[in-house]
């Protein structure tokens, strides 16, 4: 039930705010330009016109890609990059159809994971290397990125995409004032979380804002509870198709814990019909009607757009998913979208491949790129970006997130993206029933085991 435009979807009305933030972002910070392999322009280097398909975000990021393409064209006479933004609805089938056609876009925007694996097995996506080198799948730029950011595009030890977004771990956003009013700190264990839920409910405060219409919003709870209870292997068994893997006691316990939260009225009334992208749940947290919300890094930008003063004042807190007492998982593990990627098409000429690889490396090597991401409230996955945060107005959020990503023993890629759509659709729609208390944890496991 995921919409084609998923977590990266953001309302467009924050564009102006972001642009302003971008202007105030540091102009002096630099980041070491990563080596880009065969970047030296020789007279024999092939030239080509290629196209790149991006998912429109409706934010200044879109203009950024276009500007970068123009700059590349200028620096590389004979090359031409045209950036296109196919309509966000049905973006994926359009990409799939184009990749299989005779004239595919050389570079396409993607999320790696199950869908990309399908493209690879269909032979429409190629491993990436350095332009003009025979190192497909093992590009020299891989050392320039935080290692966890390449997991979702690494298949059989070959790299099939270059990160172009910020890293997007999931954590709690909370209203410090509301928590303080009831003498609560951010909970460090789930036992504490459940006790906080009860305390807040007594004062008619919704503990956790949840917009679960899209169903991936609720999935983040299952992902975290499972990891904290049973560790990363529980989901890895599911992902590898192990029979009966959904019946793992950690999954049953995680689903039971979710239902405990529901029964304790942790979420606001009507959570299953509220659409997160409307910004309603963000407003609940800001107004103190709700105390916290579990959401991804991408929501920092939204919050900044909606409530700039509140975010800048530090009244918004962030906290990582609490520990489950007695659980096997490491509380430093993260869950989320590792990042977004550019993927390389197979059915293109060697000259087009050359230019595409050169452009991709050039794009991410530019120091301006990491600076731009920081101004967007994103945490770059380019190694050595930490110093960029020093003068960012968002540093109180970005620094702990960057540290958490660097120190995470394990970063679990969002299950719906990791499993691919065929398994993700029944998973999210059945999970919505678990959230609605119309399906038991065991029924959920039984149904999902059929898809293994």
């Amino acid at each position, binding site marked *: 039930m995921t919409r084609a435009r998923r977590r990266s979807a953001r309302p467009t009305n924050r564009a102006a705010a972001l642009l302003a933030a971008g202007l105030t972002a540091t102009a002096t910070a630099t980041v070491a330009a990563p080596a880009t392999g065969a970047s030296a322009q020789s007279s024999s280097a092939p030239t080509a016109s290629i196209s790149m398909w991006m998912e429109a975000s409706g934010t200044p990021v879109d203009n950024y890609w276009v500007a970068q393409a123009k700059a590349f064209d200028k620096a590389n006479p004979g090359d031409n990059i045209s950036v296109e933004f196919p309509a966000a609805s049905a973006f994926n089938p359009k990409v*799939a159809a184009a990749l299989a056609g005779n004239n595919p876009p050389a570079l396409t925007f993607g999320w790696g994971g199950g869908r990309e694996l399908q493209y690879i097995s269909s032979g429409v996506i190629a491993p990436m290397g350095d332009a003009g080198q025979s190192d497909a799948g093992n590009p020299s730029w891989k050392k320039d990125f935080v290692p966890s950011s390449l997991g979702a595009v690494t298949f059989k030890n070959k790299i099939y995409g270059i990160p172009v977004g910020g890293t997007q771990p999931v954590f709690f956003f909370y209203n410090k004032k509301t928590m303080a009013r009831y003498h609560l700190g951010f909970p460090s264990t789930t036992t504490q979380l459940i006790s906080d839920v009860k305390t807040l409910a007594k004062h008619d405060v919704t503990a956790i804002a949840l917009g679960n*219409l899209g169903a991936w919003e609720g999935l983040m709870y299952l992902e975290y509870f499972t990891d904290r209870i049973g560790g990363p292997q529980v989901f890895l068994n599911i992902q590898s198709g192990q029979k009966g893997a959904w019946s793992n006691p950690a999954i049953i316990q995680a689903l039971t814990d979710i239902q405990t939260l529901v029964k304790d009225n942790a979420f606001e009334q009507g959570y*299953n*019909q509220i659409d997160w992208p409307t910004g*309603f749940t963000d407003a609940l947290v800001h107004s103190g009607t709700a105390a916290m919300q579990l959401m991804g890094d991408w929501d920092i930008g939204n919050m900044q757009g909606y409530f700039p003063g509140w975010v800048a004042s530090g009244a918004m807190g962030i906290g990582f998913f609490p520990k489950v007492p007695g659980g096997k998982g490491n509380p430093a593990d993260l869950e989320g979208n590792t990042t977004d990627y550019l993927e390389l098409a197979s059915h293109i000429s060697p000259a087009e491949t050359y230019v595409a690889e050169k452009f991709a490396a050039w794009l991410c090597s530019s120091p301006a790129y990491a600076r731009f991401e920081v101004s967007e409230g994103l945490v770059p996955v380019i190694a050595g970006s930490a110093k960029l945060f020093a003068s960012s107005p968002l540093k109180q959020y970005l620094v702990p997130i960057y540290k958490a990503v660097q120190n995470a023993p394990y970063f679990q890629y969002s299950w719906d993206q990791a499993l691919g759509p065929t398994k993700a659709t*029944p998973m999210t*729609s059945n999970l*919505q029933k678990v959230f609605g208390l119309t399906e038991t944890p065991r029924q959920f496991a039984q149904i999902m085991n059929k898809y293994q």
Partner: protein
Amino acid sequence: MTTSSVLSGPRQLVASGTTRHTAQRRAFLADLMGISPVMALYGLFIIVPSVFALFLSFTHWNIDGPIRWAGLANWRQLFSDPVSYHSLLVTLELAGLSWVAQTPVAMALGIFVAGTQRYRAVYATLYLLPLLMSTAGLGLMWEDVLFPQYGGLAWLGIHAHLAFLSREWLGSPNLALYTIVVIIAWQFVPFHTLIFQAGRRAIPAVLYDAASVDGANLRQSFWHVTLPQLRYSIVTSSTLVLVGSLTYFDIIYVLTQGGPGDATRVLAMDMYNIGFNQTEFGYASAIATVLGVLGILLALLLVRLSGFSRMDGPQEGSW
């Protein structure tokens, strides 16, 4: 053709058979030319895609790879898949409930606005408003009206002390489908009202005069004059409601995306998900084919049951 030969009368006798044949052929060709653009468009946009969908239903196709022959695999999956079976039931329930919700209301309103009393034109215009709005816009509007805690209905519930209005109209699996049925009815009743209004206006006043001479009261003239005379309006309207409900998609997509869980996941929604999210176009085409065949069967059944196909005029006899 028969009409023209009767009209031309005796002159037909002198006209040679060949001339008549040529004239007929010319008329036929003229007819053919007249309808050919429509036929071409119908063929291009209805027949060709339908045949292609039927073909695809016997294949596996992810768009990014070649089309592979699947034999009956998709069809076997369709008939053994509890998810699709559930979607079929939801679809049939939606169609049935839509008929129950729309037809009587539209008929009553249609008869009302067909009258000549004052202000009816004003009412008729007001009823039509929902028909003029875009479905996606309607969906967003209803989303706000039904929003839990802060929506229009919840507001009324609090301020007018009507507690029963504060419900999870779209978030509860027991209510969501009924809520959708009411919204669809709200959108389409105006259109069906027009059908019944036209139908009621076409009933000759003399029939009511005759009924009142025979001593019929209002109720009796409704049952014995209005209702039988409206039967083709009923068939037309019912066909549109039932067949239309089979493929109903947009409001559901905007409001619930088929949820909560699968409470409002109709076959069209299922087809969309399987096709456009899961890119399994073979299986999605099998569902599309089922929807198409169901629609045609339902339309044929209604036409057969009503005697519409025999082209009897409603005023020629009783039903």
